[in-house]
């Protein structure tokens, strides 16, 4: 008899728990829905100029403005497109160079003095990743003036975080035996880095650099909006002169550029790794 009693109690407890968790889930669902309704109201219903959108048919008109390609603009896009690619490339290279200290300090197994250098490197990585490229570009335009240099620096700063994070994780996972071997023959910290660590992590670093280069093309194509040259500047000019077909053309050019970047990175990755 005692067995059935405990079983009954156990079953009752499970059913109780399930209905409780269902209630909790329902409450969470209600909360999420309320948040959605509130944010739809606050952002979309209250903050939109509905009169402008609906009554005058402005909406369709402003969309049709964008349809079409301004062929006359195409020859003027070649040089900014090359500039965009160059800014992305130089920025990525500079980012890789600046990465080296961040990687060295940020990998827990090789960092020279863990309690201090490790948090510094982690903070550097997080800061670099969390600040948007537009903000970096604004900062560097203020610091070094208008032009491509500001774009290169912004791209470099923005790239550090991702490359350094992935590379530092690769170093933390590496095989410790070569490191010990070089230490055992009396190699200095620097020699340990060159001969034991670098050969192991180089494929990862190259792979992540190519990946970042691809993303950086996308980023450098908009830096012109805040004064750092490239396709973004042409985009900005077309928009400000209300040449909407030109805007479409620039966007298509950006798409072509990104496709080019993806193809190049595919082949480079195949050749190197």
């Amino acid at each position: 008899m005692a067995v059935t009693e405990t079983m009954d109690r156990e079953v009752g407890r499970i059913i109780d728990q399930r209905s409780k968790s269902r209630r909790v889930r329902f409450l969470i669902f209600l909360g999420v829905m309320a948040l959605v309704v509130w944010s739809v109201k606050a952002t979309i219903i209250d903050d939109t100029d509905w009169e402008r959108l609906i009554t005058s048919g402005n909406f369709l008109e402003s969309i049709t403005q964008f349809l079409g390609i301004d062929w006359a603009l195409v020859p003027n896009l070649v040089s900014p497109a090359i500039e965009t690619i160059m800014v992305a490339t130089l920025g990525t290279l500079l980012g890789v160079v600046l990465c080296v200290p961040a990687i060295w300090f940020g990998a827990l197994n090789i960092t020279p003095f863990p309690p201090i250098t490790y948090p510094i490197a982690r903070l550097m990585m997080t800061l670099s990743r969390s600040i948007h490229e537009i903000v970096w570009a604004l900062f560097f335009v203020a610091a070094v003036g208008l032009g491509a240099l500001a774009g290169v620096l912004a791209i470099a700063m923005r790239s550090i975080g991702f490359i350094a994070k992935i590379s530092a994780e690769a170093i933390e996972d590496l095989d410790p035996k070569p490191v010990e071997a070089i230490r055992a023959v009396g190699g200095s910290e620097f020699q340990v880095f060159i001969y034991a660590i670098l050969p192991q992590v180089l494929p990862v670093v190259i792979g992540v650099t190519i990946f970042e280069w691809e993303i950086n093309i996308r980023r450098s194509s908009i830096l012109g909006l805040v004064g750092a040259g490239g396709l973004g500047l042409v985009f900005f000019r077309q928009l400000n002169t209300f040449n909407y077909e030109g805007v479409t053309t620039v966007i298509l050019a950006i798409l072509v550029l990104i496709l080019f970047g993806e193809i190049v990175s595919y082949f480079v990755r195949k050749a190197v790794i």
Partner: protein
Amino acid sequence: MASATDIRTETPPLREWNRFRFPASLYRWGGVLLALTFLTYSIIYLNIPLERFFTMFGRVGELLADRYYPPEIDYVLEADYLGSVVDTILMAYLGALFGMLLAVPLGWFGSYNMTPSRHFVYPVARLVTMSARAVHETIWAILFVTILGFGMMAGVLALTMFCIGFAGKLFAEEIEAIDMGPVEAIRATGASELSVMAYGVFPQVRVAFTGIGIYTWDVAFRAATVIGFFGAGGMGWYLKRNVLQIETHRVAAILLSIIVLVLVSEAVSAWARARVAKAK
């Protein structure tokens, strides 16, 4: 005299085997030379004043000390600005939500193993995700502002496009990595494609999708802080206004507030992702 000891003893021609036709160092140095040429050429082409690069660090320090320090913290604690922060959070929330709702079907159609039709739906879904990803979020914001007018709706739609591109790709990759066993089992019972999706695929990717969803929200918030710069609502507008008015102390305060908010959102998202991964 022909015997077993009469073995030809001449050595084979001395030629080391090599996979390259020329010495490998030639390729390597050629590559380095090419890279250096490109580097020099692009520095000349972009008209980069190198001397400015080396004096930059002093100037940046000077700039920070003179103009941006001290940040006007009071400004970011005003009710107007705090309201715009709330707006930004709502925008990121809605944009990520809409984006993910659209990204789930796109991920399904764009995954090579589960797509309903490999010749038509798959390339279309791939193209949509790729173009949503290729166009930068600020360009989306500018386009929607031009079409819809200033306001947060443009921002929400821009973030939606951004999240479609971001989450759609990750969702598709996640679906491509599933175990096909349960899918075949459910197909064998004669279930429709939708039930296969619901009972064969979804349980396998649920945890990963939740993680990706949280990460998407985090990235969308990062983007939301600046799309206001182009008129799409949120705190970016305050940034633009103060940049144009050269209120540098306020700009410094706004930038600091953005950094702090992004760090907080990153910490929250890392914590939530760790929780989700543990609940697996």
